[in-house]
């Protein structure tokens, strides 16, 4: 009814149009329509805002499908589009504009007529946002040539400065220039000797040679990998609950290698997006696709695999947009982009390119999901292959031995069968044993309850041994039984003590011994041999027989079956006969697992009956009675034999050990992209909800960017080739800007992650375009651009400021002075390691764990990894190799603004906090470096003996320049005070040096007490030097 009413009113409007004489001539959009739009619609549907997905910025924009699914304008048919009905409506929820005056009937009539006439919208040179137009090389600004204008960069910068009445500052000192270049290119400081040598005879040519040596250094790739890995959100764990470790470091190494080889940036891009789809893809090209396998993955029990997959594809599309196009596509997941010219449909067209890889979580058992998805083995070398062969033959030998033992065990099965036949008679009577004495070696308290169970309480030690003596009056004991019981006072009711959520216990080893009665006054306990073990339940890999295998590292545990009673029974090899009326039995219960996984309440019992059939489940009993066994039944029977016989179990453990070794030699794997044979269909997801698919879409690229070449394959490889097309207006600009940011601390575009219409304008737009074109025309050489930058006067200016510069160029956006900013987290570490002489130059391989404080890694969930700080050279590897766990990244990196790498980050923030001061002052890692630097200084032959020379040398290692005498005074004063303190306090010397012995190898042992005092005082000075603002800035 409402709709009809509207139709009538629209018909009426046309009549008005006729009456007002607007009917005759064709509507002039600019004169008649545009003013209406501009005054009544544009605020919400214009250049800066796109409510509901609609904006009137071009004919195309005005005719796209809206967030609601409607279309505003259908050419020639005013009644089909929603525009006319919305501007005519008076329903508050419907009408447009939603507030303010209504459009007049005349205005509406004009719009109706305009649409009827085909909604003509003159094509004009509506200037596209600059970043969507391909860059053209700008001409150099006209400048009088001078020595300060070393290369093209300087022309653009100097011109901009001249406009403000400023000029380039002078060059920094030679030592500072070398330090800045070295840190910028390799992330490491120049060696003192190299600086010394250069200062003897500085020249432009030798400077260039130094630059080339930095570019050629393998450290270059390690330094430049870090910002890329931030963008690629590379980490060594899955993210989310539990946050398990995953293996994909080969991708990180690929990035380092590619950068070192100066792989052209277009190829670098292409291989990461679609290396797997290249014809005859090499191993390296496949590893490169790890770029999009770095996405987080949720393996929580409640995860929906499809939801997880869709979220991962979203992440891939969004990261592709941010990293290669400097474009925020995320908004279009749910609706047309509010500001930038991208529609939701275009988003899902991009989505379809990434929609063809397999699901990455898999239900592995019950409700447990595991991380899954395509992996590849890395190739291994010959030595490892040989080692694998020898382990394999060892494994086979063990298996054969186990087979032989198994035959013997199986012979016993016949006996079992006859026992089973008489099982009814074998009703086992268990007698609780009276507790005479309970003691523990770890200080817990205990109570003996009425049922003769012992309730342990009080402190919770990591490990514990309970010693229990009980009275026995059974004339014959064939077996004993331990009951682990719940109790309301136990965490989560137990039966273990260590954890409310998982009150597990691990009985590492049980030793039973028998002795004379308490009253006999004699001691003389003798160990009773135990030969079989049964339990109502054993945790996988923690079978009950492991409590009597003589190995403290193994044991019986009950995980997942918490909060209930359990029992384990142990048969005596020879039944124990009582000599008098009463005897004693002593139980040693070793619980060595750690973290308080000890039994909270237990009771001890004994029996005179035969327990042979006790641990045999009904399932096994049935199998035993069968005349013939199939494969599955035989496997069950083997499992039963293995887990109840200590000897078999021992062999099983040995086999497991060898298998573990073999697994360790298994070729490392890495995560790769892999297309499914049959691609998925892609649908526009309404409001981005994977449960709410809308219309089907094909693949395609955003219309505002360069067009799709029809010869490209319609897949990810096609997308990658489209991406690296030199017509792409964004790829090169975004890349050079990101590099510029790393060199200068801020980009030519300050918002490196967004080049869209909402971004702040570039500080030097022409320079940006010039560099982008230069990158493409140099064959996409990263090193070429980096060299241009560091060779420029702009980069080599002194970073000294003055009142004039602070007022006219406060943030150095105009580049009126040299860059000066705090290093990124990893560089702070690498720089200090190099200064101290500890740095390991070992490259690549699995991630490393240097020192970090305890209790950083503690998250809930299965398979949580543990931190084992390296004691070898891995302790001193570069930051890029430190393991990156998303839930808890390396804490000193976090304090220096490292992201968690759960999502793509283009630019890290740069904060200045007291936590940073505390890190550099007190983190054991940095204290080690201070001591090592002191040790390096005293071992440095040319400065031996002379204190001020040693202090100067130490400082020079930190800041490259030769320190001023007043600076040495400060250090000397501190040194004297500390030496004075240490000479009266040998304990402090030992505390400082011995805790950090690891850094000096064996060298420290040979020092005299006086030398040790000197070293300690010098270490404190070095602690100061590593904390200097100058040391952590470049």
């Amino acid at each position, binding site marked *: 009814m409402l709709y009809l009413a509207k139709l009538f009113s629209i018909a009426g409007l046309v009549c008005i149009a006729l009456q007002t004489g607007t009917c005759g001539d064709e509507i002039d959009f600019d004169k008649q329509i545009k003013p209406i739009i501009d005054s009544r619609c544009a605020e919400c549907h214009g250049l800066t805002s796109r409510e509901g997905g609609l904006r009137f910025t071009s004919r195309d924009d005005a005719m796209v499908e809206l967030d609601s699914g409607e279309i505003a304008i259908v050419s020639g048919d005013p009644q089909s589009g929603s525009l006319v009905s919305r501007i005519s409506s008076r329903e508050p929820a419907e009408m447009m504009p939603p507030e303010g005056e209504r459009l007049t009937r005349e205005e509406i009539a004009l719009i109706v007529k305009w649409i009827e006439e085909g909604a003509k919208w003159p094509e004009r040179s509506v200037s596209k946002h600059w970043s969507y137009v391909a860059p053209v090389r700008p001409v150099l600004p006209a400048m009088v040539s001078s020595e300060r204008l070393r290369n093209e960069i300087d022309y653009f910068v100097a011109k901009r400065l001249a406009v403000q009445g400023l000029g380039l500052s002078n060059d920094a000192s030679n030592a500072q220039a070398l330090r800045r270049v070295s840190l910028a290119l390799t992330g490491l400081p120049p060696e003192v000797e190299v600086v010394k040598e250069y200062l003897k005879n500085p020249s432009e040519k030798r400077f260039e040679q130094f630059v080339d040596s930095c570019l050629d250094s393998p450290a270059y790739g390690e330094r430049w990998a870090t910002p890329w890995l931030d963008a690629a959100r590379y980490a060594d764990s899955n993210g989310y609950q539990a946050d398990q470790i995953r293996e994909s470091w080969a991708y990180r190494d690929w990035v380092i290698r590619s950068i070192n080889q100066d792989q052209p940036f277009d190829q670098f891009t292409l291989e990461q997006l679609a290396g797997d789809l290249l014809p005859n893809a090499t191993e390296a090209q496949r590893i490169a696709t790890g770029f999009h396998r770095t996405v987080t993955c949720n393996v929580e029990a409640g995860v929906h695999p499809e939801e997880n997959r869709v979220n991962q594809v979203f992440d891939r599309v969004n990261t592709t947009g941010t990293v290669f196009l400097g474009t925020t596509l995320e908004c279009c997941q749910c609706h047309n982009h509010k500001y930038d010219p991208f529609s939701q449909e275009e988003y899902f067209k991009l989505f379809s390119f990434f929609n063809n890889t397999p699901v990455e979580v898999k239900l592995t058992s019950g409700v447990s999901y595991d991380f899954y998805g395509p992996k590849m083995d890395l190739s291994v070398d010959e030595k490892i292959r040989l080692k694998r062969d020898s382990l394999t033959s060892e494994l086979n030998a063990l298996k054969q031995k186990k087979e032989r033992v198994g035959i013997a065990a199986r012979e016993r099965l016949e006996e079992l069968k006859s026992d089973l036949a008489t099982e009814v008679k074998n009703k086992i009577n268990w007698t609780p044993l009276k507790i005479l004495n309970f003691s523990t070696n770890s200080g817990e308290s205990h109570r003996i309850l009425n049922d003769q169970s012992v309730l342990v309480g009080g402190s919770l030690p990591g490990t514990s041994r309970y010693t229990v003596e009980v009275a026995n009056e059974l004339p014959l004991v064939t077996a004993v039984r331990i009951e682990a019981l719940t109790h*309301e006072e136990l965490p*989560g009711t137990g039966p273990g003590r260590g954890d409310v959520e998982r009150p597990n216990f691990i009985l590492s080893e049980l030793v039973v011994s028998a002795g004379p009665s308490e009253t006999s006054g004699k001691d003389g306990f003798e160990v009773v041999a135990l030969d079989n073990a049964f339990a109502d339940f054993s945790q996988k890999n923690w079978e009950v027989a492991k409590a009597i295998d003589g190995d403290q590292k193994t044991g019986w545990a009950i995980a997942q079956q918490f909060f209930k009673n359990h029992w384990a029974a142990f048969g005596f090899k020879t039944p124990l006969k009582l000599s008098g009326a009463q005897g004693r039995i002593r139980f040693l219960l070793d619980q060595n697992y750690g973290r308080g996984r000890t039994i909270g309440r237990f009771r001890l019992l004994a029996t005179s009956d035969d327990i042979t059939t006790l641990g045999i489940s009904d399932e096994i009993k049935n199998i035993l009675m069968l005349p013939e066994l199939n494969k599955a039944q035989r496997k069950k029977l083997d499992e039963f034999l293995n887990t109840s016989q200590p000897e078999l179990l021992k062999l099983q453990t040995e086999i497991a050990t060898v298998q573990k070794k073999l697994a360790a030699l298994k070729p490392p794997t890495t995560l790769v992209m892999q297309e499914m044979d049959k691609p998925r269909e892609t649908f526009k997801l309404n409001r981005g909800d994977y449960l709410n698919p809308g219309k089907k879409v094909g693949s395609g690229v955003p219309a505002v960017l360069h067009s799709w070449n029809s010869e490209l394959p319609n897949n990810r490889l096609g997308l990658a080739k489209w991406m690296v097309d030199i017509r792409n207006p964004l790829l090169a600009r975004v890349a050079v800007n990101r590099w510029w940011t790393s060199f200068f601390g801020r980009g030519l575009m300050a918002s490196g992650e967004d080049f869209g219409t909402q971004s702040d304008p570039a500080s030097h737009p022409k320079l940006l375009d010039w560099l982008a074109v230069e990158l493409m025309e140099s064959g996409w050489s990263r090193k070429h651009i980096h060299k241009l930058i560091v060779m420029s006067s702009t980069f080599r200016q002194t970073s000294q400021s003055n009142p004039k510069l602070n007022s006219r160029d406060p943030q150095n956006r105009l580049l009126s002075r040299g860059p000066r900013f705090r290093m990124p987290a990893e560089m702070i570490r690498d720089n200090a390691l190099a200064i101290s002489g500890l740095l390991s130059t070992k490259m690549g391989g699995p991630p490393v764990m240097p020192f970090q404080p305890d209790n950083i890694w503690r*998250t*809930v969930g299965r398979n949580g990894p543990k931190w084992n700080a390296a004691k070898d050279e891995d302790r001193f590897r570069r930051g890029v190799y430190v393991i990156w766990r998303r839930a808890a990244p390396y804490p000193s990196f976090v304090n220096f603004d490292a992201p968690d790498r759960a999502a793509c980050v283009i630019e890290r923030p740069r904060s200045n906090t007291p936590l940073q001061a505390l890190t550099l002052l007190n983190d054991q890692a940095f204290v080690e470096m201070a001591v090592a630097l002191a040790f390096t200084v005293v071992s440095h032959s040319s400065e031996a003996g002379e204190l001020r020379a040693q202090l100067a040398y130490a400082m020079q290692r930190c800041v490259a320049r030769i320190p001023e005498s007043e600076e040495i005074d400060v250090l000397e004063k501190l040194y004297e005070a500390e030496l004075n303190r240490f000479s009266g306090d040998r304990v402090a010397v030992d505390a400082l040096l011995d805790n950090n012995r690891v850094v000096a190898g064996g060298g420290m042992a040979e020092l005299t007490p006086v030398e040790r005092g000197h070293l300690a005082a010098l270490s404190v000075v070095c602690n100061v030097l590593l904390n200097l603002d100058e040391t952590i800035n470049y």
Partner: protein
Amino acid sequence: MSLHKNQQLSQDLTLTRRHLFQRIGSGVGGIALASLFRESGLGLSASLADSSALGQPGLDIAQRHFAPRAKNVIYIHMVGAPSHLDLFDYKPELQKRNGQLCPDEFFKGKQLAFIRQQPSLLGTPSKKEFAFTRCGQSGIRISNLLPHLQQVADEITFNRATFTDQFNHAPAQMMMLSGFQRFGRPSIGSWTSYGLGSENKNLPSFVVLVTGQVLGAGNSAWGSGFLPTVHQGVEFRSKGDPVLFLSNPNGIEAEARKRTVDAINELNQRQLLNLQDPEIATRIDQYELAYRMQSSVPELMEIESESKQTHAMYGTTPGKSSFANNCLLARRLVERGVRFVQLFDQGWDMHNSVANRLPTKCKQVDRPIAALINDLKQRGMLDDTLVIWSSEFGRTPMGQGDVKAANVGRDHHKEAFTTWMAGGGVKKGFVYGKSDELGYGVAEDPMHVHDFNATIMHLLGIDHEQLTFKYQGRPYRLTDIGGVVAEKIIA
């Protein structure tokens, strides 16, 4: 600081300051004055406001969007999600129908984390221990499992129709704590710090205390996302250094540390005069502050100085790491002007044996939480301290496992659960919202996570739609594109 004696330099900084104010005038986010100083990358906070990244200047009341009702927040987040149906949301009908198969619409087409077959309804056990008692003047029903909380019922507003979008722990935690299901967004404490700064120069503005393991969302739960990292939560740990790297290394004691910090600052001072980079001035201040923190933080953590009565009231034992200790620490932190204190307690994810395990957990938290509310009240701090109880979601009215067995539990549930707030301008002894008679869905006054967060911001005097930060070309806020302030709960 001799820095301020240098006339020339001060003038330069004033100039830079004017530049900054121009930026503020152009309105980025509009509100976060305190943050703009730091965001500028100039690190001028120290020189400008005689403050530091940690001791940020707060906004004048006049600068806030509304008159603030709360100055500080103590936010208790129960990790794993407690069974609200057995604690706060009394459901006699559910008890009556205990053991019956749940209605189809509770199961068919629904996603549940663990339950795979149509489950049966699970009522609260009909034991005295689990009974709900009407409490105080308000007569609000609270489970007997929380006898101490029952005593302070008249201080609390219960939001019984809270709901969320996610039923997996990590994403739901991020949803609750940052307003987005994904990683990389600032947490609510960071937004608060960004908006309001801190009143203590020697402590961070956002402090986190954890009992049990760290939650699934990891450090992201208190991360600053794209906000400046000074706003991230700083964890005060109960084992080892209370703040990472706080204590001096072996062989270096306080006197020596003082000498080293002086030497560092003296050398940095020379650099400052030479280079005139204001960031060096900030660094000098940060070293001073770090040195002060080395005594202020241990002093704060030292709860032995509290009275016997206080310890008895909270159930605290000095030196132990416990939830009770964290509650007491929370009060001490707020007392010292820390803006946002967040407590995380692990161990509420009771998929099994809920009837056995819930009493144990309740015993750990009941007394200290009630003590915290009483203590704040006695000290006159409750009026401007907002105490919050939340979890990432609630638990199903259906049993997980055999409802007749003792080990039956409850699964994750996002459709309706209970959160509560006390002090800080919320009504006293009030119930907001209602779940349906079986506790499955919302019946009245729904409160989405965004509404919950919008209300917290409102109580702090912040319009949640105005406190924004531009990132990737888009202004972001805590409440994404949602959030309606629950006016009805404001006193």
